[in-house]
């Protein structure tokens, strides 16, 4: 039973260990730069994973490229443009604001505005119910006629 449990735990942990290789940096600042960068970039093969999480062959190669760029002292921007020059803005989780991406950025605000305007639109029917004085002339005549019948 205990062996079974160990096997199950082992099989759950193994993929986590295998995915990303250990990198050594000569500077702690470079390491944070590298690790931050990998979270910002999407893997093209497994599109639901970041470059840092992906076990795809291409992701490994790209990590190699980025590692050597960062290690040789290049900035995060330089590494990002290396990637976007080849794979486009698609690789970025936060693409730049452009003519093709404006809807992506503005979309949520538009949805909130649309939803809000529907929710807070003046409700005509309810207002009329709350305010019985607002009767049309026809309705007033009808009301008078009915009242007279009661009398």
């Amino acid at each position: 039973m205990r062996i079974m449990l160990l096997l199950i735990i082992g099989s759950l942990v193994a993929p986590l260990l295998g995915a990303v290789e250990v990198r050594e940096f000569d500077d702690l600042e470079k390491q944070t730069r590298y690790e931050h960068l990998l979270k910002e970039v999407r893997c093209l093969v497994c599109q639901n994973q970041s470059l840092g999480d992906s076990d795809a062959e291409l992701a490994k190669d790209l990590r190699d490229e980025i590692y050597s760029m960062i290690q040789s002292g290049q900035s995060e921007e330089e590494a990002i443009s290396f990637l976007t020059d080849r794979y486009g803005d698609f690789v970025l989780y936060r693409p730049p604001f452009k003519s093709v991406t404006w809807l992506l950025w503005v979309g949520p605000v538009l949805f909130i505005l649309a939803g809000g305007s529907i929710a807070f639109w003046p409700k005509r029917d309810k207002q009329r119910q709350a305010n019985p004085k607002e009767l049309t002339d026809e309705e007033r005549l009808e009301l008078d006629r009915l009242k007279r019948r009661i009398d």
Partner: protein
Amino acid sequence: MKIRFLIPLAVFLVMTAFLAIGLKLDPREVPSPLIGKEAPKFSLTDVMDASKAMSTYDLKGDAVLVNVWASWCVSCRQEHPILLDLAKRGEVTIYGINYKDTREEAQKWLRSYGNPYHSSAFDPNGHTGIDWGVYGVPETFVLDKQGVIRHKHTGPLTQAVIEDELLPIIRKLRGEP
């Protein structure tokens, strides 16, 4: 019948339309930023002959196809007969980039299945592949006479892709200076 009651129906129809379009889109088709740019430079060797150099310079002069392939790639095997057929027709020269392969395996592959390529550049570590923005072999690029990338197809080629997508572009590019 009040028009307000039609609003949910309208919203539903619009959503259905968007979702239907979304279903048809292929998330693997990522637009390449390299289209309209000069093909990224490489200087490699011919996969069949390690002593023969091959570079981007060889791709210039005519509208050509550049197909990225590997012996380990299953879909490449799938599109291979179509490339062979296209090469036999002689309408366009096909170059290859042999991506992350071993020379031995690649040569064996070409010998047993046939070689549609005028020549293939040997890119064992995949650096050229990365420069070309390759993310899933097979990929096929259309280059114009100046060596500028004009079109890219990701995934295996089919007869329909050749006839309706690639050849019309190549014919058009032939007409350009």
